[in-house]
């Protein structure tokens, strides 16, 4: 029998016992829905975690340091190739070279310093961090109170929520107010004074050209900043999140402040030439998948690198196990539903015994009868799968809605808890179809083997 005729006959048979077949299909739909709901939760959580971690700046960033600096840290994650390359200074030409690497979005220095601020006449100690303008677009500041910096060099500040709580019980009221940032500015000395010993030092600061070849003094400064926003965490924690910034200012501002860094003294003692150099640079990569290749390229350039790539791999493994467990639980319902298919089709054989006999008498081969029952099982699986995906998606949305209502009451930003990607839609329908065919094997085989003479005698 041709496929078109087979489909028509199967559809006709399914319509004949509409109620029973609909209930069986509904059983499959519920099974698929539980599978889809479980997996969509797993996928949603994975995407949520990946998104948060990506936005944290940990997984798409490579920290680049001069090898001499890394030796100070105990030399993390250096391979043999990197060891073989000569140590290079992390200066502006190197920064340009890094920016030109494939998959590199931007390269910026790490500016993070301990400071004191004055707010409402009271002093507060904290850590400040410079935030690049690119951070605005990566979604990390979604849901923050207030706004991101109005301009790359705006004298503005964003507070981390815990720090904001120290400043005021009513954190919302802080937005729009002003604070004073106290910091230690590295100030250039005239060249003739550098020859003098004692309190002067030979400066080779990262950002001050006028310091070139000169020593420096440290002067206390103060800068007024307007609070424009409050964020839950510092999204771009940079160096593995250590010493997270609680007061965030535009990176351009942070660089112009010429803040004295603890490494300034070390650089001076090393007797470097006085050219611009950086303690470390953060290389932001297009996506976490490109981190490894970028890291390899940087190592070949003669720099030390640090990233949390391995942690990403482990995270992926954890989610694969998690998804598998959810999938197994979800499949249990589908297994029960497949028993419903077997039951329905076995009942259909009993009811249609005579019809099967007639079909065989008219020339139907065993194969035709088997395919007819397979087609009926497959159709139930297909429609059950489609309905199940819709139902599973709806369950996921309902869970999402309920979660976000709860989060809103807690004053937290909304999240996307469940996700039904296209691959899940296709796999769920395919799996349902496949399971239904497996379930249809026994009834189909039984129907095909019916003795036509016996079947024709059946009343």
């Amino acid at each position, binding site marked *: *029998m*041709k496929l*078109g*005729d087979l489909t028509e*006959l199967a559809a*006709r048979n399914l319509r*004949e016992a509409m109620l029973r077949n609909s209930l069986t299909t509904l059983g499959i739909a519920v099974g698929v829905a539980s599978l889809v709901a479980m997996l969509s939760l797993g996928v949603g959580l994975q995407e949520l975690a990946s998104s948060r971690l990506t936005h944290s700046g940990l997984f798409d960033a490579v920290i680049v340091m001069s090898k001499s600096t890394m030796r100070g840290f105990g030399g993390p994650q250096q391979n043999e190739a990197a060891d073989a390359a000569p140590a290079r200074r992390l200066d502006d030409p190197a920064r340009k070279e890094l920016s030109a690497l494939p998959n590199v979005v931007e390269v910026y220095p790490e500016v993070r310093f301990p400071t004191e601020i004055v707010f409402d006449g009271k002093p507060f100690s904290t850590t400040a961090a410079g935030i690049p303008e690119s951070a605005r677009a990566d979604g990390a500041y979604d849901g923050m109170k207030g706004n991101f910096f109005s301009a790359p060099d705006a004298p503005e500040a964003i507070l981390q929520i815990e720090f904001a709580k120290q400043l005021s019980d009513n954190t919302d009221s802080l937005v729009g107010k002003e604070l004073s940032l106290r910091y230690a500015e590295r100030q250039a000395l005239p060249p003739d004074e550098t020859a003098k010993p004692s309190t002067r030092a030979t400066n080779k600061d990262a950002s001050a050209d006028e310091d070139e070849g000169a020593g420096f003094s440290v002067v206390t400064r103060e800068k007024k900043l307007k609070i424009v926003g409050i964020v839950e965490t510092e999204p771009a924690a940079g160096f593995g999140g250590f010493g997270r910034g609680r007061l965030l200012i535009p990176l351009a501002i942070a660089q112009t402040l010429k803040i004295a860094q603890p490494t300034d003294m070390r650089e001076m003692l090393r007797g470097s030439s006085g050219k611009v150099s950086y303690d470390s640079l953060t290389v932001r990569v297009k996506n976490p998948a490109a981190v490894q290749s970028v890291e390899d390229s940087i190592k070949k350039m003669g720099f030390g690198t640090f990233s949390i790539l391995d942690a990403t791999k482990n995270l992926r493994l954890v989610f694969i196990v998690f998804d598998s467990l959810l999938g197994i639980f979800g499949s249990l319902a589908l297994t029960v539903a497949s028993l419903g298919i077997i039951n329905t089709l076995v009942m259909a054989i009993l009811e249609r015994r*005579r*019809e099967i*006999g*007639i*079909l*065989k*008498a*008219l*020339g*139907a*081969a*065993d*194969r*035709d009868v088997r395919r007819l029952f397979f087609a009926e099982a497959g159709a139930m699986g297909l429609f059950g799968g489609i309905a199940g995906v819709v139902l599973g998606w709806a369950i996921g949305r309902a869970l999402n809605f309920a979660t976000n209502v709860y989060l809103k009451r807690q004053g937290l930003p909304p999240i996307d808890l469940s996700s039904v990607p296209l691959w899940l839609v296709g796999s769920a329908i395919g799996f349902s179809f496949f399971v239904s065919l497996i379930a249809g094997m026994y009834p189909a085989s039984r129907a095909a083997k019916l*003795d*036509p*003479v016996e079947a*024709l005698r059946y009343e």
Partner: protein
Amino acid sequence: MSEPTGTHAIRTEHVTRIYQMGESQVPAVNGVSITVDAGEFVALLGSSGSGKSTLLNLLAGLDRPTSGAIYAHGKNLAEMSSGELAHHRSHTVGMVFQAFNLLPRMTLEENVELPLRLAEVERAERPARVREAVDRVRLTARLSHRPTELSGGEQQRASLARALVNRPTILLADEPTGNLDSHTGDAIMDLLTEINRTLGMTIVMVTHDRVRAERYAGRIITMGDGKLISDGVRV
């Protein structure tokens, strides 16, 4: 094994069909050898349990003999695979049953079309073939009716149209008038005779009605207890 194709439409050689009934074996057909020539109208006559319907099922390829050989146009059904038997049922023979055996949820047209679907006849060709078969049994006006909307005689004519639609060479009828009144039964028998004469189709009809057999069939084969009792050409 096959035999040379001659004028024989059907030939059986010592055909035996034994059923296992618990511990005992019951021979429903026991060593029957007959020959039916192409274009013959043969009546298989016998009382209930004589084995005539079992023999008809064997000729149709619905059942397999325990021993012996059955040749249809020279091909031995006993040696055919399940698929080949299905092809035989679809293309070589057409069957008419006492209980009509129409599918109740299909219209007359759909019932008649069913063998064409099973024989994988092209969709475009089917309406004409259905029309031809239905015209032959004079049921054109009832094409869209379901079996429950037809009389017994009409149902049997529909069943006959379904048997003819694949243009078989042999028509096997199992008590075709058994469920009909005398007048309607005669009309069906007239139709069978007409088909036999106009199409030259070989007809083997099982019946226990000696009067009808003698009136319509060209030859009567009588069976009893599974054995061949007599085989005579009616003059």
